[in-house]
Structure formats: structure tokens, C-alpha cells
């Protein structure tokens, strides 16, 4: 399969962080094209045609999301970029912003033109302060060239772009929590409806998009939506940044064409080059910590024995019984020496720490699960704890304002579904479990 790059094409160009090198390699040509030759609606149309799906994790079609934006007279509209990348396993946006900051800046101006937003905001997680500085420099350069400010490219379109930091809260990656935070409040998610497209930032119509989604608008406008849609398979179009981590020979950020096989991604020379230190694959969480874990026999093949592909559909094949999700592209790989119980406890501790505390099922449930899992991990658990976890799980899922509750519940449910014997072993062999790991599962648990 070919390996076209749309976002990271000029990654290796010296000085690509700066505006001169970026412009020399075709930068801001999409913006110029849109402002001089296309109407805002035509830009939206190209994005719809491209089939681009939100790259933050939910995979909702970006063009469709844009078309929901309310446009009442006399009320400002806003575009907000979600750069609060904090889903464990995900570090692709940071990479993109750090390496080619102007791609995001250009995408922001371009998308704002399509949406009719005179001001847009980039909300970046507080830990990425050095990336904020890189982006601020890029924004300053864009102002100096006249790509931001008044009457851009003589089109009459004015635009201001502001970047602002968060303060360390995973929940602010949820779009309504992000808007609360951007308004200077605690990051408590809002009840929907109203959706941000109707009442978002300061109660104005707002679109919130992930960094990578906004950056992808640049090649979409340059080449046209159809060209973008010609890459990939079915409803998984274009390229995707995947951040690979865990026990891999070569972890890092890769731009892949959607449709690449999972096997090629893990073992291929152009990608992760296999499991670190020649060990065996035990499991994989393919789309950030919130998505279901896959045991080794379901990573490169589906339950039906078909090749598993890096697409929204193929990774989800089999539903939650035997599939997972592409999610944010946070691809976490576990080698044979990793303990699934410990990892599940670790992830649950994360969610318990990051729950905003608004909804009881999530606030209490994540804490309970963390305690029960810790008990199991340290050899003090009972067999009934495993069913107790499944029970707490069901009571969190679907019963919270925002998806953090689901995100906390799914990984636990999946770990028990696929690795129940390992959980039980922690109960039946408490002393042994403190000295050694369970190792690889021997028998597939899902037919």
C-alpha cells in the first residue's frame, strides 16, 4: 500500500516551523485559494465531500458537524481548537503542533472562514507550555505577513486567533468542559442539548474541533474533497496520525493512510518494527486508554479471521465482544511481561483522578473500581470482586453527563471479558501474583 503524507509531508524540511519555509513548500496556498476563489459554503462542501471524521476520538464527520452551526444574525460565532490532548496513549497533536505549527494556524483561519468566525481560540493543555510558545510565534508570524488580522489576502475577511493554556485536567478534552474552562471556570461538562453548535462559547454558536481535524482541512482545500476521500477505505477516508507507544521497538507518531493493516503497522519496517526486545505481543489498546483492550489473537485479525485494518470500521469489527475502536489513534502495545490487572488498575486510577465529580456514578464508581482493582492487583481480592467490577461498570456506563464515565467503564469491562483468567489467577495465586506476571493467555477466550 502507498504511504502518502498529507500532514507531515514536509516534516523534514529544515526550518519548517517558521513561516518562510512553510510558505515555500505550499503553505497558506489553501487559505489564499479559499479566500480568493471559494465561498465559505464551498469550503464546507469540500470538507463534507472529503469524508473527514473528527480526529479527536469520536470520529464524527467534521463537515456535518460544521453544517449544524447556528448562524443567527448579529451574534458572533466561534471556532475553538481542542488542543487539550490528554487521552493516555495519545501524543500526535503535540507532535504536529510542535513540528509544523503553521499547518494548524492555516487550518484555523481557513476553517474560521468556512464557519464565519471572526475570532477563534486554541485551547492547549497547560503542560504543553513550550508548544504554546511555538504556536504563539507562528501566530505572530502570520499576523506580520497579513494572514491574520484585517482583510486577509484582500478578501475582506478579518480574523483574530488567540491561544490560551489549560491547567491540567483530562476532562477539559470533552468539548463542553473545554468551553467552561475557556470561560474561566471549573471544567465541568455541560448537559446537552443545547449543543455547542447552538450555544457554545459565551452562549454563542461554536464549533469545537481537534487539532488534527483542523489541520486536515488544509490539504482538503488544496486537493479537493474528492481527492482526500480517494485515500482510505469506505467511510475511513484520508490519512490519520497514530501515536504508538508501550512496548514497541520504535514508538512514535506516524501518519498512515487509513486502511493500513494493523500487522503492517506493528511489525512493518516503516512503522513500529515489532515488539521491543524481541518479545511477544500480549495485547493492544488501539485508540487511547478509553477504548476496549484487544488480546493478542484479536489484534491483527478479527474474530472472523479477517485481516484487521487501521480503519474506524475494522477496528470496531465484532463490537465490544471482540473489537475495539480507532479512537484518537493512541496505539498502546503490551508485551508478554505486562500485567493486565495492574494496567487496568492504573487506567482506572487515572479516570478516578480525572473525574470532575459532577455525576455520582462516575465520581463514586471510578473510585470504587480503583479500590477493588487495587485489592485484586495486590493479592487481597476475592473472586466475587470480578463480578462486582462488572456490576459497578454497568451502573456507570450511560448514566453520566459526559462520556468520561463510559471511558472509565469500557476498559475495565473489556479487560475482564478477555483476561478473566488472569484476574482470577490474582485471587487464586495471590502470593505468586506478587512475584511474577501471568504471562500470555494460552487459549482464546472469544470464539
Amino acid at each position, binding site marked *: 500500500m502507498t504511504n502518502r503524507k498529507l500532514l507531515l509531508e514536509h516534516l523534514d524540511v529544515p526550518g519548517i516551523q517558521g513561516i518562510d519555509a512553510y510558505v515555500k513548500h505550499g503553505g497558506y496556498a489553501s487559505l489564499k485559494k479559499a479566500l480568493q476563489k471559494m465561498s465559505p459554503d464551498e469550503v464546507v462542501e469540500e470538507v463534507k465531500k472529503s469524508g473527514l471524521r473528527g480526529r479527536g476520538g469520536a470520529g464524527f464527520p467534521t463537515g456535518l458537524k460544521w453544517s449544524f452551526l447556528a448562524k443567527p444574525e448579529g451574534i458572533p460565532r466561534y471556532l475553538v481548537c481542542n488542543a487539550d*490532548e*490528554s*487521552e*493516555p*496513549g*495519545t*501524543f500526535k497533536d*503535540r507532535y504536529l503542533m510542535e513540528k509544523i505549527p503553521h499547518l494548524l494556524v492555516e487550518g484555523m483561519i481557513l476553517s474560521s472562514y468556512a464557519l464565519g468566525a471572526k*475570532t477563534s481560540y486554541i485551547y492547549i*493543555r*497547560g*503542560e*504543553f*507550555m*513550550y508548544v*504554546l*510558545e511555538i504556536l504563539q510565534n507562528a501566530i505572530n508570524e502570520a499576523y506580520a505577513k497579513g494572514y491574520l488580522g484585517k482583510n486577509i489576502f484582500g478578501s475582506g475577511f478579518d480574523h483574530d486567533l*488567540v491561544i*490560551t*493554556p*489549560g*491547567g*491540567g*485536567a*483530562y476532562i477539559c478534552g470533552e468539548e463542553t468542559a473545554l468551553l467552561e*474552562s*475557556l*470561560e*474561566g*471556570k*471549573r*471544567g465541568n461538562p455541560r448537559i446537552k442539548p443545547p449543543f455547542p453548535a447552538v450555544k457554545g462559547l*459565551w452562549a454563542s454558536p461554536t464549533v469545537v474541533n481537534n487539532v488534527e481535524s483542523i489541520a486536515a482541512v488544509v490539504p482538503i482545500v488544496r486537493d479537493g474533497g474528492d481527492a482526500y476521500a480517494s485515500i482510505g477505505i469506505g467511510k475511513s477516508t484520508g490519512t490519520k496520525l497514530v*501515536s*504508538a*507507544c*508501550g*512496548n514497541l521497538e520504535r*514508538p*512514535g*507518531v506516524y501518519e498512515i493512510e487509513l486502511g493500513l493493516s494493523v500487522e503492517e503497522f506493528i511489525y512493518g519496517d516503516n512503522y513500529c518494527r515489532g515488539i521491543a526486545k524481541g518479545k511477544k505481543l500480549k495485547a493492544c*489498546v488501539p485508540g487511547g*486508554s478509553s477504548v476496549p483492550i484487544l488480546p493478542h489473537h484479536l489484534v491483527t485479525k478479527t474474530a472472523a479471521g479477517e485481516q484487521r485494518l487501521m480503519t474506524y470500521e475494522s477496528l470496531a469489527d465484532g463490537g465490544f465482544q471482540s473489537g475495539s475502536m480507532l479512537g484518537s489513534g*493512541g496505539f*498502546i502495545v*503490551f508485551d508478554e511481561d*505486562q500485567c493486565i490487572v*495492574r*494496567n487496568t488498575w*492504573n*487506567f482506572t486510577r*487515572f479516570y478516578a*483522578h*480525572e473525574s*470532575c465529580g459532577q455525576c455520582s456514578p462516575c465520581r463514586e464508581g471510578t473510585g470504587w473500581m480503583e479500590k477493588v482493582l487495587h485489592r485484586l492487583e495486590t493479592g487481597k481480592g476475592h473472586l466475587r470482586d470480578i463480578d462486582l467490577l462488572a456490576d459497578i461498570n454497568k451502573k456507570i456506563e450511560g448514566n453520566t453527563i459526559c462520556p468520561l464515565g463510559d471511558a472509565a467503564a469500557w476498559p475495565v469491562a473489556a479487560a475482564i471479558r478477555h483476561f478473566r483468567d488472569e484476574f482470577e489467577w490474582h485471587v487464586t495465586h495471590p502470593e505468586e501474583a506478587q512475584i511474577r506476571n501471568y504471562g500470555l493467555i494460552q487459549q482464546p477466550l472469544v470464539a
Partner: protein
Amino acid sequence: MKESKKVVTTEGTTQFSAELIAKMEEAKNCFPEGKEKSAILKILHLAQAEFGWLSVHSMDQIAEILRVEPIEVYEVATFYTMFHLEPVGKYVFEVCRTGPCMLVGSDQLIEYIGHKLNIGIGETTKDGLFTLKTAECLGGCGYGPLLQCRHRFHEHLTPEKIDSLIEQYQRGEIKPGAL
């Protein structure tokens, strides 16, 4: 608003300078009139960078700058984990402990740092130089184990790298990252 200043720690030590206030006013100007509260996180970061932590006195001054009630600053400062609400060491090592970092040895690294500095998690060395904290996912999963300190990331850490990092900080060779 003065009644709210119940706990003013060491009078004067967290008094904002004119220069700091000017930076905060500039941060406010990034937002439309009437929406200046949006600058609160940036302003809290500025105050923390200046004093190392956020005292009630600092938060009360911020409330005056933003023209909001002090509680509106407290409730925000207590929500976000990057803000230290009590004094910490000059250098706070926040080591990521979440899944992907754990897979590549963050648990052992945290233990090593604690042993090396002779402190537990959340504690500060007697000379006041280092505080050890753990952090949830810092977004550097492919480069772990890692820690952040004063807006800088230190990645691909090993015990040897920790040794040299601590020495470099002791000698004051590592400047704080951008803010």
C-alpha cells in the same frame, strides 16, 4: 473583598509586582470586553511561575485584577492539577505514572527518584530544592518515562539521566520553560 483574606501567608511574600500585574492585564486583553475571566488559567500560571505556588493572598489579588469574587478564583485553582496550593520545592518533579509510561518503567523511576532524593511522593527535600510528585498522563507516551519540571519535559529517562538531571538543577543550569 478584604474579609476573605483569612490566611495571608508570610505577609508580603506573595505581593504582586507592577511588572507581574502588567503581564496579567495583558493576558486579560486577549479576550473580549466583559469576558476577561477567560484569562484566569493563564494568570494563575503567571502567579505560580513567580512564587512557585498559589497562596490565598495570590488568589485574592487575582480576584481583584479580574474583578471577580475570590471564591471564583479558589474554585478554579482547586480544580486544575497543575496548581500547587501549598508551598513546594524550587523544582517540582512531576513524573507521569499513567499506563503507557508504566509500561516502560515509570513505577521504578519514581521509586528511584524518591530513593535518590530521600523523599516520598508529595514530599520536599530538606534544602527546599526538590519536590517529588506523580502526574497523570502528560501526553508524551512514546517518549517515556518522563517528567515535567517548570514547564519543561525531560523524556526517555533512566536512573543515569536522573542523576545528571538532579545535578544540573542543583547547579541552576536548567532555566524554566516558556510561559
